[in-house]
């Protein structure tokens, strides 16, 4: 192994390179660790090797196939005790208080009970595919989450139980496995750094949550964004002074959206602007650099050319009402 031994020119004899040896040992250890983990993972049975559990497409059960949640509680006592505070408990009040709760999701339980707790005779969600899981939940919740089946989450195989847990939730009200944003960061690791930047929406601090702007169940908008009632950007729900409508609009705000100038998650720049210098941001558009292709940019400018060397203030020092004005076409007031 040449890597571990280097020949020192001065002494003309091989010398053992300890630093390089340490690196090799570290890499070898890491590789062995990864191999152990991966192989132990491969040793786990894949879903297709398991005995198929009762799926959502099983033969419809008749009334006599249901045993009631009291029967379920005789064995699953711990789960049943905690269920009294679960929103799904309301299902028991259906059909003249004869409604079902456990079997509403897990399927009719008679065969499971008669089989002495045969797990193949009851719906176990851990053995279902994402689509099968979603079909069960959407039996009741499709109305409220109508876009879910076409959403990015559903397309990526993220099921209801990826985020929610009926029996082991951290958040009782929404039955989430963890509170936001920790739950969302589990997968969206690339978004987390943005909220650690100096200027950011206060998601980590608990003032806002990811679902204030995004609907994880899907919307008709890109990036699963919400909108306000009047189909304005969701930003205007809190930043109401930018909603307008104004007599003199800054057109890009309404046509391109707030993200034309701002980075909504976080930025090292104040006001979460996309660039650090306001003048650069404005001049990127308000600049007659190619009138043939951008004839409208120049005509919006109107005013005099400013000497940047003496224009020590930012554009918005004078053009203060930059989101729109009711009195000045140049947004001075």
């Amino acid at each position, binding site marked *: 192994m040449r890597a571990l031994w280097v020949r020192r020119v001065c002494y003309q004899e091989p010398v053992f390179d300890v630093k390089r040896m340490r690196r090799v040992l570290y890499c070898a250890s890491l590789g062995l660790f990864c191999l152990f983990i991966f192989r132990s993972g491969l040793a786990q049975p894949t879903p297709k090797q398991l005995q198929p559990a009762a799926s959502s497409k099983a033969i419809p059960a008749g009334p006599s196939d249901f045993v009631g949640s009291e029967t379920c509680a005789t064995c699953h006592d711990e789960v049943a005790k905690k269920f009294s505070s679960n929103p799904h408990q309301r299902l028991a009040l259906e059909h003249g208080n004869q409604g079902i709760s456990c079997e509403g999701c897990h399927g009719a339980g008679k065969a499971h009970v008669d089989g002495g707790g045969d797990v193949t005779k009851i719906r176990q969600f851990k053995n279902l595919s994402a689509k099968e899981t979603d079909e069960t939940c959407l039996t009741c919740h499709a109305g409220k989450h*109508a876009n879910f089946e076409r959403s990015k989450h559903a397309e990526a195989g993220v099921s209801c139980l990826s985020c929610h847990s009926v029996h082991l939730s951290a958040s009782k009200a929404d039955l989430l496995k963890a509170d936001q944003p920790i739950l969302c960061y589990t997968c969206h690791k690339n978004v987390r750094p943005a909220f650690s930047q100096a200027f950011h929406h206060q998601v980590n601090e608990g003032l806002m949550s990811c679902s204030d702007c995004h609907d994880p169940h899907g919307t008709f908008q890109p990036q699963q964004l919400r909108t306000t009632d009047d*189909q304005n950007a969701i930003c205007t729900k809190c930043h*109401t002074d930018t909603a307008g409508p104004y007599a003199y609009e800054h057109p890009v705000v309404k046509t391109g959206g707030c993200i034309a100038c701002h980075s909504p998650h976080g930025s090292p720049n104040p006001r979460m602007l996309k660039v*650090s210098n306001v003048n650069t941001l404005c001049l990127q558009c308000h600049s007659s650099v190619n009138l043939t292709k951008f004839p409208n940019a120049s005509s919006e400018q109107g005013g005099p050319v400013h000497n940047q060397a003496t224009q020590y203030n930012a554009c*918005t020092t004078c053009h203060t009402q930059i989101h729109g004005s009711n009195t000045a076409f140049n947004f001075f007031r």
Partner: protein
Amino acid sequence: MQSRSSMCKSSHLPGHGLSRFAAALGVGAFILTLSAAAQNAPEPKETVRDGYAAHQSIDVGGRIADQSGSLSMYDTLVNLHSGPRIFQQSIDMHAVPKAPHFFLFDSLMATNIGYGGDPENNTVLRMSKGKIYDFQGMFRRDRQYFDYDLLGNPLIPAGVTSNGYTFPQVEHAPHLFNTVRRMTDTNLTLFPVAKVSFRAGYSQNINQGPSYSSLHNGAEAQFLQNWRNSTDTWFGAVDWKPFPRTLLTLQENISHYKGDTNYQLAPPFLQLPNGAPVTLGYDQVTLPSCNDGNPPIVNGGTNPPTVNPTCAGYQQFSRYAPMRTLFPTEEFRFQSSDIKNVQVNGRFHYTGASMKMPQFNENFTGLDDFGIRQWNITGYSTAERVSVTGDLGIAWQLSPRVSLAEQYDFWNFRQPADNYLSEIDHLDDVNPNTPSMLDPPGAPQPPAITLAHNFLGQKTETNTTTLGWKASSWASFSLGYRYRARTIGYAMPLVTDFLANGTAYTLPIHENAGILGAVLHPSSQWKIDGTFEAAFDDNAYYQLDPRQSYRYQVHSMWTPTGTVTITGAFDDLERRDNQTLVNHVDHNRSAGIGAEISPNEHYGFDLNYGYIDAYTRTGLCYSSTAPLAGAQAAPADCGTNTYLGTGYYDEPTQSASIDVMLSPNKHVTSHAGYRINAVNGTTEYLNPLAVPGSLQSHYQTPFFNVKWAVAAGWGLRGEWNLYDYSEGGPVGPTAPRAFQTNLCTLGLHYDF
């Protein structure tokens, strides 16, 4: 044979290594001692009373902040200060089955967080009763303090003097704000599981507080801008399930916005020779020039200093522009899964909003650079927003392996607006060639009328078709096509003393996009999903509007064991507009990887690393008497601008965090960790005298906290956070913005 140097190193144990080890032993012994003392403390129980099982908790305590460095920056970024706090208070009640209880609710949950002095406060209330109702309410309060010396640092260098008076350096942002936003959201659902259910709700958003603004007219006047904006929103809806899997919804939303922000002239004030207060504005890079050619300060020895009355200045200013906007929206939604293998949903919105600013009033007395001594502007504005949207989505499972999704979106908004302004100016009739603030305002000039009938509108139609194919139990693919047609209309036929005519145009833009997706399960513990999207537009509205865009997204989650989860995500958005001289390129790349290791309830690790790179480059024209080295001469299209810049901006950011959890027993839990966010970017500095945001900064926040359940229902909590922000590289001529704050939090917890 080991090298001589490595043998020396291996035989030497530095003294600090021993002391570290000893310290670790000591900490471990302390924690074990704590655990021994707490081992016999019983768990608190739920209280059952009056038919409810109730659990309450409260956390009280305080914070101690030891702050050094820039207080402005600390208040802008963190804003946590010393003082007592109610960290958290909660109550959770649910009815005991078959026990009589209060008729109003079966379950109630209320939480209050952050009261007593933290900038963010939060209250949540949820109540429900069986099949009768569900109620959710939330109140959030956020103090938004901004004092970052960037957007308008007036750059008064030290030592700008005139006749013994040194113009003070401004130490706060001229657009500082210190506002409070209070947001209330309530939502009531009656008969939530019935065939017909009703929903109603109310939301309120109040944003108020002082801030600073400015006006450029001769001098840069600073204004005290008293924010007072509020929005009230009501909605009522009916949900009807005519069939088991079909839902129809009719909803009415009404929002009412009230803008009552007003402006007053802000101090500090100097004085005129007649003793009247006046301000020369806040921007004096060099001494202001005055009409009579004399210095701006005639006597620096008076209190306050006496100003040359022929300088541009503000004696009095007020602006009052109340704005009222009503947004009524009618909404119809439907969703149905009653057709086998088909899920269809859609919605239709109509908004007919109207804005009125019935009375605009602005008064100025002083002297501007046009020789105007006084002006009064009155007028009004109206605007409408008519927005129509229609969306339809269909998901059809053609076979167990093949699915088809179709989505059509229509959106058309139109915003006609009118503005009428009348400005009456008064010049200096006494000394028209050398106007002075000591001379009374002259006779009113003929009114200058602004009459505008403006229009902005956009119509967008989008159709997206996606074919999904489940190739095997471990691989699924999707292929989609999107077509979008957008038409923007704009008109501003303005008649003013500045512009004779505005411009009207209609701009069509058509987009074709392809979307490819894949979801892979190489093993039962490993999932990868990815999307690639490419979009091409035949036109662009502005230089940053891309004609080509590409997006790559990958997520991966690997759970080799039940106690280890490793996830990674990558997102790359590339946008281009390769028009001559513009050559706009921007990308936003983000990547993150994290590992959560929880072998048991006694210890665990959470490690994360993230990288963000935001980059943009756009050809732009600018003028400068001190251009950048190697600045390129501007082409003819740039008009009177002299140089062509690149608008180069690159912001690579690294972020890392580690959180170690240690819980020797169920009564003691501690976390220790470190977070850092480091930016190392560059940009083209067009304006050497500007104060840009820092593109070289470190923001690190190590932390440690421990919770100890000392007895049944009682707990202690201690937390230490360090907020350390520092900047490097060119930050412009501004006061240093670095800060370091040690924040200690002590709390007492009680469960009952």
